[in-house]
Each structure stands twice: as C-alpha cells, then as structure tokens.
C-alpha cells in the first residue's frame, strides 16, 4: 500500500515538476477568444450602467477595480461620477491590453530558442509600455478618486500609488532589457561570416 502511495506521489510530483509555466501560459491563448468576449460584455455592462440616465437602474454602483460605491455622486457631482467611471474604464482597458500582450508574448516564445523571435521582442516591449501606462493611469485615477471621496466617504482613504504595479513594471523592464540584448546578440552572431 505504501509502495502504491509512493508511486502515486512520485507520479504527481514528477508531473508538477514537468509543468512549464511558459507553456501553460501560452496554452491560455486558445481561450483568449472567450476571455475577450467576456471582457467585452463586462465592459459594455459597466458603460451602460455609467451612462444610464435613470438612477433607479443603479441600486449601487461599485467600481470594478476599486470596489467603492460612487452612487451618491450621481446626484451631487455628476461630472466626478462620469470622470471616475471613465478612469475606471481606462484602467480596465489597460489591464486587458496588458493581459493580451502578455499572452501574445508567451505564445510567441519558442522555448528551444527563446531569443530567435523578433516578434517576442516587440510584444515584450508592448507589455512594458502597457504596464507603465497602467501605473500612470492608475495613479491619476486614484488621485482623483481620493479627492472626490472626501465628499461622500471622508474616512475612506485609498492608497495613491500601487507600488506593486511599479515593481511588476521594474521586473518586466529588467527582463525586457535582458531579452532584447539576447535577441540583438543572436542577430549579431548570425551576421558573423
């Protein structure tokens, strides 16, 4: 019995050890169509709720990322209500773009020769640009949200800078520099006759 248990454990652990994170991430691109349609539905519902004129439709209006109910602003400060909503849409689009390019990047990497594909380099640069854009949009959006929140919920304060995003940006940037240098080196080596 012990032997069987050991064999099962060994099989499972060997399978887990064999799992390749890049390959498993790359396989996600097969489901990207479903993700994309679901995200579109989510975004459409949010935009409809944001611009709906009848306040009865909005029993509560929680922001998708910040999860704060900004419905009281609908009657008191409509401009802030719309602007925060639009910022939240920008943030959603940035996250969607980031995820999209990350999937494209992982899908384009050839594990046997990762520095061969120039397309991967382009996608990685796009991922870095998107993450920097996301950090900036997020900081501006949160700054505005903090300012407006003083009207509706004075005790609630949101962290202005999400440094974890900055950390991801930094990590990706370092990776991009190494990867780009790798691609350039490979090209240079190919041009030595």
């Amino acid at each position, binding site marked *: 019995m012990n032997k069987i248990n050991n064999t099962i454990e060994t099989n499972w652990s060997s399978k887990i050890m064999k799992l390749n994170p890049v390959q498993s991430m790359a396989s996600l691109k097969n489901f990207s169509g479903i993700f994309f349609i679901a995200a579109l539905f989510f975004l459409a519902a949010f935009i409809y709720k944001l611009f709906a004129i009848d306040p009865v439709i909005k029993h509560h209006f929680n922001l998708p990322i910040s999860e704060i109910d900004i419905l009281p602003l609908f009657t008191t400060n409509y401009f802030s209500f719309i602007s925060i909503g639009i910022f939240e849409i920008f943030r959603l689009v940035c996250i969607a773009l980031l995820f999209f390019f990350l999937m494209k990047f992982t899908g384009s990497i050839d594990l046997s020769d990762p520095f061969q594909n120039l397309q991967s380099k382009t996608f990685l640069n796009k991922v870095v640009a998107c993450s920097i854009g996301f950090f900036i949009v997020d900081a501006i959006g949160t700054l505005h949200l903090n300012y407006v929140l003083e009207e509706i919920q004075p005790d609630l304060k949101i962290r202005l800078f999400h440094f974890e995003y900055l950390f991801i940006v930094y990590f990706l940037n370092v990776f991009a520099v190494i990867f780009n240098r790798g691609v350039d080196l490979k090209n*240079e080596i190919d*041009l*030595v*006759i």
Partner: protein
Amino acid sequence: MGLIINLDVMMAKRKISLNELSAKVDITIANLSVLKTGKAKAIRFSTLVAICLALDCQPGDILEYKKEQ
C-alpha cells in the same frame, strides 16, 4: 563603420559567380550575399583565408578602409 567590402569587384575581376565561390569556400550563398552587401558584422580569419585562396588575392583586395566624414 568605414570598411568597404570589395568582394563583388574581385569576383568580377576573376569572373567567378556567387554559386562557384560558395562551392569553393564552403559558405552558403545567403552568407556570401550578406558579406557582399556589407551587412555582415564580422568575418572570421578562416573565411577570409578561404576567400583569398579561392579568388587568388590579398585581404586588402577584398577589404578597404575609408575615413568616415
């Protein structure tokens, strides 16, 4: 870079085609073409020797340095 590759000139002087040179030097036509068009980043001594042997010339006949303005 200021370095000019005169491989095409020497090939014309010796009346040798790219295919023939490729077979003599044992380098692919694609790589020879890269070298001929000046896109190559570097050239190995062994390649240079093989080309000089095939074209019966000196390295200076193939490579020429011109000061950049």
